[in-house]
Structure formats: C-alpha cells, structure tokens
C-alpha cells in the first residue's frame, strides 16, 4: 500500500480523512461525510453553483478551468438526460494523487459526483478509473454498494425526492482517455479518440446529453467546499486560485509523497522543506512542476508560487501538480528522450501533427541519444515541436510539444555538449552508405 506522508506545512482539507478507514461508509459518515450533500439538497442547485464559483476552485486535471463556471454552462432544460463524468484516468507521468483519493476517501468522490449532479440536474454519474487501478475500482465498487444499501444512492435520497445513480467504470490502459472528449468516447465503448469541439461536453456530451466532466480531485474537493463554505475555501489559496492542492513530489527528493498544500505555495520551499531536499548532498538541476507535459524549470527559476497564474507567468504550467525533481546527475537528453517516448506511445494517431510529430521527435531524439546527433537536430526538433502547438485535435499534441520546447530552450547547452561528448558519428554517414550501396 502506498505510503502516506505528512508535513506541518500541510493544510489538510481533501486529505483530511486519509488513513482513517473512511473508505467504509460508517467511518465516512462519522467523520462528517454526506452532510454536504444534505445541505446542497436543502439549498438547491443555484446556491451550490454560487458556492462553487465563490470557492475559486479550478480544474485539478491540469487545465485549471473554474469549476463553478463549467457547471453553470450546462443548459437548465435539456431533452436528453444530463450526466456527470468523473475523470479518474490519472495517467500524467508524475501524478498519483487520485490514487490516494480513491484508496482513502472514495466516498468524497461519490458525494462530490452527487452534488455536481444536483447542481446541473443530472440523475446519473459515472466514475471512470484507469484500468491499472483495479484494486481501487474494487474499493469504489464497495463504496457505491454501501451507498445503495443505505439509500444514499438510488431513489428519493434522504426522503427528499432527489434521485441519483452512480456507477464506476474501468478503462483499459490509455493516457489519451484522460482528455475529456476521448474519455466520453471510451465510456461509450469506443477507441479513445478525441471529438471535435465545439460542441463542448456541457452542451453535447455523453450519449449526446449535456455532461459535466471533472477530474477526481476536483470532484472530491466539492463536499469539503460545501462544508466549509466557498469563501473560506477560496481564502486558503491565492487570488483566483482557491483552496489547496494535492502536490505529488517525486524524483530526486528525500521525502517523496503526496502533500496537500495551499495553492500558491512556494516551489523552492516545497522541494527543500516539505520534501526534505535533494538526497546525497547533490545540487538541484531542474524541476518539472506539474506532470510530464509541463515545460521544465531550471534550478534558478523555482522561487515561485505554485498556482495556475504564477506558473503561467513563469512560462510553464501547474498542470496536475506532479512535481518531478531532477538533480545534477540527471541527463536532460535522456530525460527528454523518455518524455517523448511516452507521448509517441500514447498519441492516438487520429491527427497528423501529433501522430507524425511525436514519432519524428522520438526518432530524432533516439538517434541523438545514441550519439548520432547534430546541432541541426536541435533546431529541427524545436521547430517541429513549435509547429505542433495548437495544431492538433486535442491537447495531447501540445502536451508532447511543450516539454520538448522547454528542454531545448532551457538546456540547449547540454544538448550541444552531448554532441561534443559523444562524437561517435561523422556527419552524413548514412548518405555515404547509401551511395556506396
């Protein structure tokens, strides 16, 4: 079982019940669970959406879209049924926060789903977990079954006339399915290929009905926001970045783990104080601040607050808040190759800039890594990556291009040094062989 960590700097809101057996409904209720749902049923949908807007909660999957606003886009009247879809396809390298939510507090996800359903007028919610998380799916299934036994799911919940059904669903291995439209395709039993937007899911989503899709952490935050009030939650974070965030710190740190810290928490402090600094007296080289798709920061760029806006200003993203720490021993060339290998593997192949772009980046990076790189390769790869940006159906193309651009921009010296240190290939060797043949 994954280890839980703790640090005095933490502000435990959504991780409050972790490690206390709250996967069981009795414990969950004893610790205040399902009170937020009762309150929302009493207060009604408009009040809920207003609280969510006030909370400043922004999507925890990575895009950072304001949740309350997303919910308010769903049309009140709809001929087709509306749905809530929870994105638990957690696959961004560096990210394992939802893993812990599902393990320690599955009911917070269920309760959040129900509140979202109440807010938008949906009667059905789907909780989609990646297929690798089988043991967590089983925990979720037990939690759902307990809700049905207690009448917390089903018809006439708490005798209020509110009906809601929720179902957990397994994926079968696909990063791309974390993209919201691909997620809907997958839930409909198809290849996880993205849909063209617009229409947006809030208008035409699952089975053609209006659908709210939220990341599991976003949804799990909802009951806590209702409980403490949107304004109090907002105050925990920074301006326009309400609340706390689950930061997963991994790589070259002494105390890796998932820590709940206020939005805007200083990255340098996070690495050196919360995560205990770099092992073996090594120096920090760089940080990938929000999962593999976020452009890398050099060691001298980390004195910055971790919220969506400050990260944007720093030229990167908060993303999924998976902080990956690299010390001086790590080769950026190797790290870049591993990153692009991942995106090439996960590109669904539907659109050409992503399919071909990730493939050529991987091929060139592989050759470069093997010692056959040239200075021109660095320029070409950067040019290629820059031309993928904004030209793909879904953000996977950007997710592949952005970190690559970051490596070339921030660590060009190291790529050039790599060529000098590995002079294994004379230029144009392949051409000579061709002529010879």
């Amino acid at each position: 079982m994954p280890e839980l960590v703790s640090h005095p700097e933490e502000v435990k809101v959504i991780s409050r019940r972790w490690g206390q057996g709250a996967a069981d409904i009795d414990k969950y209720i004893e610790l205040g669970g399902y009170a937020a749902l009762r309150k929302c049923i009493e207060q009604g949908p408009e009040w809920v959406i207003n609280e969510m807007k006030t909370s400043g909660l922004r999507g925890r999957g990575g895009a950072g879209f304001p949740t309350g606003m997303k919910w308010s886009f769903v049309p009140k009247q709809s001929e087709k049924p509306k749905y809530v879809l929870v994105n638990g396809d957690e696959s961004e390298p560096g990210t394992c926060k939802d893993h812990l939510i599902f393990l320690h507090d599955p009911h917070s996800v269920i309760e959040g789903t129900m509140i979202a359903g109440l807010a938008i007028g949906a009667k059905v919610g789907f909780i989609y977990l990646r297929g690798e998380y089988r043991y967590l799916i089983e925990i979720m299934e037990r939690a759902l079954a307990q809700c049905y036994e207690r009448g917390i799911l089903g018809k006439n919940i708490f005798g209020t006339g509110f009906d809601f059904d929720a179902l957990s669903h397994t994926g079968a291995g696909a990063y791309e399915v974390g993209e919201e439209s691909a997620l809907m395709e997958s839930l409909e039993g198809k290849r996880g290929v993205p849909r063209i937007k617009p229409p947006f899911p809030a208008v035409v989503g699952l089975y053609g009905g209006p659908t709210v899709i939220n990341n599991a952490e976003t949804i799990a935050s909802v009951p806590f926001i209702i409980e403490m009030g949107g304004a109090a939650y907002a105050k925990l974070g920074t301006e326009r970045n309400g609340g706390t965030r689950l930061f997963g710190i991994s790589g070259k740190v002494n105390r890796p783990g998932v820590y709940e810290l206020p939005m805007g928490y200083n990255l340098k402090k996070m690495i050196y104080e919360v995560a205990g600094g770099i092992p073996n007296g090594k120096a920090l080289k760089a940080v990938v601040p929000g999962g593999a798709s976020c452009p890398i920061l050099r060691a001298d760029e980390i004195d910055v607050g971790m919220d969506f806006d400050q990260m944007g200003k720093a030229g990167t993203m908060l993303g999924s808040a998976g902080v990956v720490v690299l010390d001086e021993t790590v080769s950026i060339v190797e790290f870049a190759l591993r990153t692009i290998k991942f995106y090439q593997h996960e590109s669904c192949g539907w659109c050409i800039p992503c399919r071909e772009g990730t493939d050529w980046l991987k091929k060139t990076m592989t050759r470069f890594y093997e010692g056959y790189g040239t200075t021109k390769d660095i320029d070409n790869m950067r040019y290629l990556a820059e031309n993928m940006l904004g030209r793909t159906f879904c953000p996977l193309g950007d997710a592949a291009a952005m970190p690559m651009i970051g490596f070339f921009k921030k660590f060009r010296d190291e790529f050039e040094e790599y060529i000098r240190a590995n002079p294994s290939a004379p230029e144009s060797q392949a051409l000579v062989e061709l002529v010879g043949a």
Partner: protein
Amino acid sequence: MSPEMNSVPNTIFSPELAARFDKLVTLYPARRSALIPMLLYAQDEVGAVNDAVIAEIAQRIGITELDVRNVISYYSLLHTKPHGKFHVQVCTNISCMLRGGNEMLAHCKEKLGIGNKETTPDGIFSLEEVECIGACCWAPAVQVNYDFHDNLTTEKMDAVLENYRQKAGKS
C-alpha cells in the same frame, strides 16, 4: 448486418462472469458502454481476448467482431495472446526512471531470463516495460497483474518474484 443480440447459448465464460455481463450491459444508457470492462474482465478469466472471447462479446453487445478488434488494438491492457501467469510490468517513465526504473527493468530481464514482452518457458512470468502506472511518489514501482509493488530495490524485487513463483507452484 447487426448480429443477434439476445441469445448467447454456449458461453465460454464461467457462470459468475456470464451473469455479471448480463447485468453490465443493462447498466448504461447504451449497451456498448459495457464493452471495455467486459473485454478486460473476460481477459482476466480467459487469459487473453482471443477469437472466442471476441466473438462472444461482439454477440453480447450486438456489434461486429471488427468493431471489437478495433477497440482492443487501442487499449494497452488488452492483449490477444496470453501473458505469463504473472505479468510483471515495470514502469520506466520519468519518476520511476529517476529512482532506478531502468535498472529495475534490466534486473528483471536478467532474473527472469527474458526480454521485454516475452514469457518464461514455464509460462509463469512475462515481462513488460510500461508507461506511468500512477505510483510516482513511491517509485520505482512495478505492477504484477493488478498488484502494485512500491519503493522497490532489486533485493525487494527478488523477494516479490520469489513470492509469485511459490504461488505458481501451489496452484
């Protein structure tokens, strides 16, 4: 040309799984939504999504076998050929790489005497280098079938493999 939806007389699945599938297709607004879970659960029982599995699931859902194959080829957990009894999946993505994921993969190759995507001659183990499995903060991590093994060292990995080897001997 839609195949017959209702009658699936000679099921290749256990009665429990067949009953589960009968229910699963009714839970969603569209029958086809049950496809991916069905394929994965069938694979768990049968060992692979082979031709017989594909044929029966296509019939249960009411789509063509080609539709089913199309979906299978997209998802990395689905496979048409059987794996070893214990499928060792070593993550080498960035967080694991920084904490010895590549060395873990090399160690498993040596220990098991097989390469990536190969199976031991006795059929007990198969090995695969996989992408991020969502255990980044507990790296390096390995998944054997669905079980996670976190914070590994090569010594711990040896014990994990030995444990599975003994399990294989007992069953």
